[in-house]
């Protein structure tokens, strides 16, 4: 497409006005490239998909400022690169940490209001669960609260194990997007990686 840059400017302008079809067009144009880069560097399908989600969630959330970006493609790839870097860093640290003996840290933890913060986040999580479809909710609750295996959930609900997996993965995605779009801190990624993705195999 020779007129792509101009066409892209129009798309970005329209996204700014909230046009979902324009957003879909931009997504279609770039999502596979970003996925490939993310997968190449993280070697995990789940993580690479998450990065794609985070990148485009960010695009959608800050749609007001998109037309001001001089070179959208570069901007998008810098965003993706930063998310990839953050994942590489946190994952490396986490794994390095797991290899250290626990008593390496001698600082006495005193998390005075841990309970309160936990509650805040749990509230957000509860809201996120509330906006799931009834079936996703059911699957999620059986998995998280009742700690059932995928097979047991399938048996309980009379669904195939494959269907449960699909519901679960949609539920996870949706919860993740709900929370990340409602907290200003990218750090939330840590929490989500550690606590929400238990369903998925570890990297």
């Amino acid at each position, binding site marked *: 497409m020779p007129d792509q840059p101009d066409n892209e400017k129009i798309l970005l302008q329209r996204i700014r006005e909230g046009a979902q079809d324009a957003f879909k067009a931009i997504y279609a144009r770039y999502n596979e490239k970003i996925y490939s880069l993310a997968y190449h560097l993280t070697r995990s399908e789940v993580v690479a998909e998450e990065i794609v989600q985070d990148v485009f969630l960010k695009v959608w959330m800050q749609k007001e400022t998109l037309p001001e970006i001089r070179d959208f493609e570069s901007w998008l790839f810098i965003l993706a690169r930063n998310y990839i870097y953050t994942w590489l860093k946190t994952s490396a*640290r986490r794994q390095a940490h797991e290899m250290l003996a626990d008593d390496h840290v001698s600082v006495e933890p005193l998390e005075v209001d841990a309970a309160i913060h936990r509650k805040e986040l749990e509230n957000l999580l509860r809201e996120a669960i509330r906006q799931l479809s009834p079936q996703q909710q059911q699957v999620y609750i059986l998995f998280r609260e009742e700690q059932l295996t995928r097979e047991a959930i399938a048996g309980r609900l009379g669904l195939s194990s494959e269907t449960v997996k699909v519901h679960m993965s949609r539920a996870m995605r949706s919860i993740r997007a709900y929370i990340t779009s409602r907290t200003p801190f990218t750090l939330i990624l840590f929490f989500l990686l550690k606590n929400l993705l238990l369903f998925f195999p570890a990297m």
Partner: protein
Amino acid sequence: MLNERLLYLMDRYVRQQQTEAEMAELRLMLGDKQYEDQVKMLIDQYSAQGLPAYKMREGAGTEILETILETTAPATQGIVRSIRPFRHIWWAAAVVVLCGAGIYLWQRPARVEVAATAASQPGTPGSNKAILTLADGAEVALDDKGNQQIQQGTTAVHQQNGLLQYHGSGDPASVSYNTLYVPRGGQFQLILPDGTKVWLNAASRLKYPTAFSGRSRVVELQGEAYFEVAKRADQPFSVKVNNKEVVEVLGTDFNIMSYTEEVQSVTTLVTGAVKVISGGSQQTLRPGQQALVDEHTGAMTVAPADVDRALAWKTGFFELDNTDLPTLMRQLSRWYDVEIIDQSKGNTVGEFGGRISRTLNLRDVLHVLEQYGVHSRIEDNKVVILSK
């Protein structure tokens, strides 16, 4: 300049040919902030050189797209803050990371202990406390446990724990000024009569009218505060900082750090737009930018901001990024209300990266620093930095 070893290890890794030992070595480098720029550069290179086109799992692409559009559907603009002030993300607060020579200290969330610490004990983390000065000069001490209604003429002020809120528009005919002073070792949240939310950090003071009448809304700040300004197109909001620079805003979220003992004041914009005016010059900031104003000369520069870092205090952290020891110590001094006596004669390690939870006791923070070669001792309300 790219580190050859990093290049080699990354290459082995993306080809999935790495040995366990190489992976461990790569992890150390990836986790080390020192290599951040290089790793990013490498990712850019992979991105530029063209990659194999990996295929997403079937349906995942559409699913992601739908998830984004659905979860943001009733479309909140920008960021919604459901996480309230000072209620930082619990798990992160329990993590202490200090990155030195590739060593990372992590703290696990452990038992939850109820705060039973006496406030007078030196080195106890700061808490919600402030002093409210009313228009007639009367002072009201506010702490975390308070729950009271203060009537001032036609203005009702309500305190609930660490939050002070002004109700109603008040009587514009009888505008008076209140001052909220947060001492060292404190923090407090305030909702102004127009609905603007302000989080005040330790050793900070905000002066504001009990009703906003007239053509603009003006408050005066010393110290550090984060603002979420209520939109009122016909009544611009501005912050006078240390009686010098002025920050003019419409409706927007930003942080101002203006402790006079720091070399510069920093205004960091999160969303919206603000104009910073200092001396004869003015600059308009865009989200993600900050204006740095030299405390002495008033000279201003605009730079990209690390927003998370600028807001770390509000989330419950000291965030360090190439932070030198004196700067870190000044932060500790304000939060733990201690005096710092530096006997090291500049003989301490250079700069720190990472983050420290503000809920830790000072003793624990110093203990962590000890492992990075900073030796110190607590004496009453003083921290003495030793030379070795």
